[in-house]
């Protein structure tokens, strides 16, 4: 697949080949996603064979433990992983595109921490206990953190990442103060904060899918604007784009997607960082394709992390957030070692 661009050829030939290559990348990612989803249904502490899973999905027998596991745990887990991964992947792509910054990511920029603080305060002060109640606070917290980080760090890639890390470091003691006072809140929070796909009912997803849909549609509409923005603010403006509007809409979309993901699966870091880099490797720099492929790669990474987490330890599980960070951190290190960032 990598050899297709090597030989000299006519421009039209090249364009056709590139389109075929991109389509191939998307289709094979889709196939991988399907495989990961099946693995997520089949694999786990209780191993089930595909036939049982199929039977549970099509003709469930009431009282059968295997079927209960599939319908009550595996299916919600898989769906939540798909939705949260999609949101994180697309949010990461948007944030990297709009800031023209290879190390931007919702978690890295403090959005997760903001959402966490808001959720903790909601649990502590207002006694909110259901994930449906968390959602609005997650959005609010992510939006406030995003506004703070972007107003201070806009412009320079490294600075933006540092401001994000600092905002996270500012919020962490605030969260800890609340948690040390209130053991009940701590007990709820620690399961949420690890970034897991389990223990969440489908009702959260039922309430949240409209946000996800709006976010993804907005991201699709923004993609070609990001292409122009990649040429620089001045060029984009000269091509007739209102840069401020693009930034504002993109910011709102990022908060919408990152807030949804955080409300669904907790604060998961570094998925939004790794996915756009992988997508750009596969389909080039055209954001229309990068956004589309990120929407597929995000679930692959998150759900894949979840499946890996079920397999590495005997009798217990590593949560998806932990495995995703373990996959994402080397990507961050690799990007940091690259010339583009070090030269900034």
């Amino acid at each position: 697949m990598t050899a297709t661009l090597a030989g000299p050829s006519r421009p039209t030939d090249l364009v056709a080949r590139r389109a075929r290559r991109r389509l191939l990348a998307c289709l094979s990612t889709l196939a991988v996603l399907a495989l990961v989803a099946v693995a997520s249904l089949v694999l786990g502490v209780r191993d089930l064979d595909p036939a049982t899973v199929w039977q549970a999905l099509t003709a469930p027998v009431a009282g059968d433990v295997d079927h209960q596991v599939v319908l009550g745990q595996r299916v919600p887990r898989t769906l939540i992983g798909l939705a949260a991964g999609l949101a994180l992947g697309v949010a990461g792509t948007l944030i990297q595109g709009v800031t023209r910054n290879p190390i931007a990511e919702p978690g890295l920029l403090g959005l997760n921490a903001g959402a966490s603080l808001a959720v903790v305060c909601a649990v502590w002060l207002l006694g909110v206990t259901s994930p449906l109640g968390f959602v609005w606070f997650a959005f609010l917290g992510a939006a406030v953190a995003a506004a703070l980080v972007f107003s201070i760090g806009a412009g320079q890639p490294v600075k933006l990442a540092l401001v994000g890390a600092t905002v996270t470091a500012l919020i962490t003691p605030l969260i800890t103060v609340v948690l040390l006072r209130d053991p009940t809140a701590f007990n709820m929070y620690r399961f949420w904060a690890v970034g897991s796909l389990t223990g969440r009912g489908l009702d959260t997803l039922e309430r949240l899918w409209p946000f996800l849909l709006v976010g993804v549609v907005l991201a699709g509409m923004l993609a070609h604007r990001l292409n122009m923005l990649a040429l620089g603010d001045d060029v984009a403006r000269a091509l007739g784009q209102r840069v401020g509007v693009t930034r504002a809409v993109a910011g709102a979309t990022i908060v919408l997607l990152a807030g949804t993901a955080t409300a669904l699966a907790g604060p998961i870091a570094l998925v939004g960082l790794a996915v756009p880099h992988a997508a750009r490797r596969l389909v080039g720099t055209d954001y229309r394709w990068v956004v589309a492929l990120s929407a597929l790669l995000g679930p692959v990474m998150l759900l894949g992390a979840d499946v890996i987490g079920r397999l590495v330890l005997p009798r217990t599980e590593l949560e998806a957030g932990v495995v995703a960070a373990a996959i994402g951190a080397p990507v961050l290190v690799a990007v940091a070692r690259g010339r583009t960032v070090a030269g900034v």
Partner: protein
Amino acid sequence: MTSTLPTPSAPTTSAATPAHVTPVAALRARRRRRLTLVLVSLGVVLLALATLALTLGAASLPPARALLALLGLGDAQDAFIVHRLRLPRIEAAVLAGASFGLAGGLFQSTLRNPLASPDILGIASGASLGAVTALLVAGLTGLAVSGAAFLGALAVAFCIWFFAWRKGLHSIRFVLVGVGFAYLCSSLLAWLLSNAEVREAQSALLWTVGSVADVRGTELVTLASGLAVLAVAVSLVGRWQGPLALGDDHARGLGVPVDAARVGSLLLAVGLVALATASVGPLAFVALVAPAIARRLVDDGGAALTASALTGAALVLAADVAGQHGLFFGVSAPTGIVTGLVGAPYLLWLLATHGRKSQA
């Protein structure tokens, strides 16, 4: 501790001094006066804070009685309060604060970046991870936890080093790789906390914040002797800090072994952070803020290492007094929370104003 100035070889204020040397000599004398003044006043502030910490508390002691008890002359109850309850806490705060301040000064002058701090670099979270693993997984207590924290900090520091080294040590790459490791450590930390029994998890959470409350006996002795050894080593390396600040080429021209000096300074800084974190936990941002204040006070363009250590000690002691006596939210807060809430806004302000001039 002669780090702040490349010392002049001889007294230059004699009558025979050529005319063009006089301004330089005057400047140096003025700087030395200022440095002395700063160090003395920091010492006074530290003493005042220590007195305050001795007298305040559930059983309030007037300064005179506290002093008598300190010298072993007061009644038994006062002596118990002072020697068993309050003094260890003050000593821990001063020693840990000095270590963090010194380490921060070394980090910042060596990486030539006022933002370099073990909190951002992930070394603090490495220490937390080590300690929490020891507490929750291995079920260790006391000095063993400190040892695990020490190992964790060193391990993360070496990982950062290994991955950030590419034909030399570029400070931004160092910081970014550090951020990556910080995220990795904190996600593992969250996992450990979520898998533990709730009461144990809460004591581990307290550890990750950092507090000077429960440092006694052997731990205190370890901290003090470790700090003494490392401080001597720092005073040997410190004289290279001035030339290093001029840039690698100039420093090399002045006969400084650049790579060795940098590696040595960073190793000492990591050692100091690991030592202090092992005994009191990762007190957020002390290592960032203390050197910045010290440099501003001394204002001679040098690393101001001695002043950084004193400032760090004063900061931690003040934070502990403030946290203990409920200046935050009307409840007593662990020391690390107070320092975090003071330090992080400062770093944000630094990023907002500083970035325009320099690379970071």
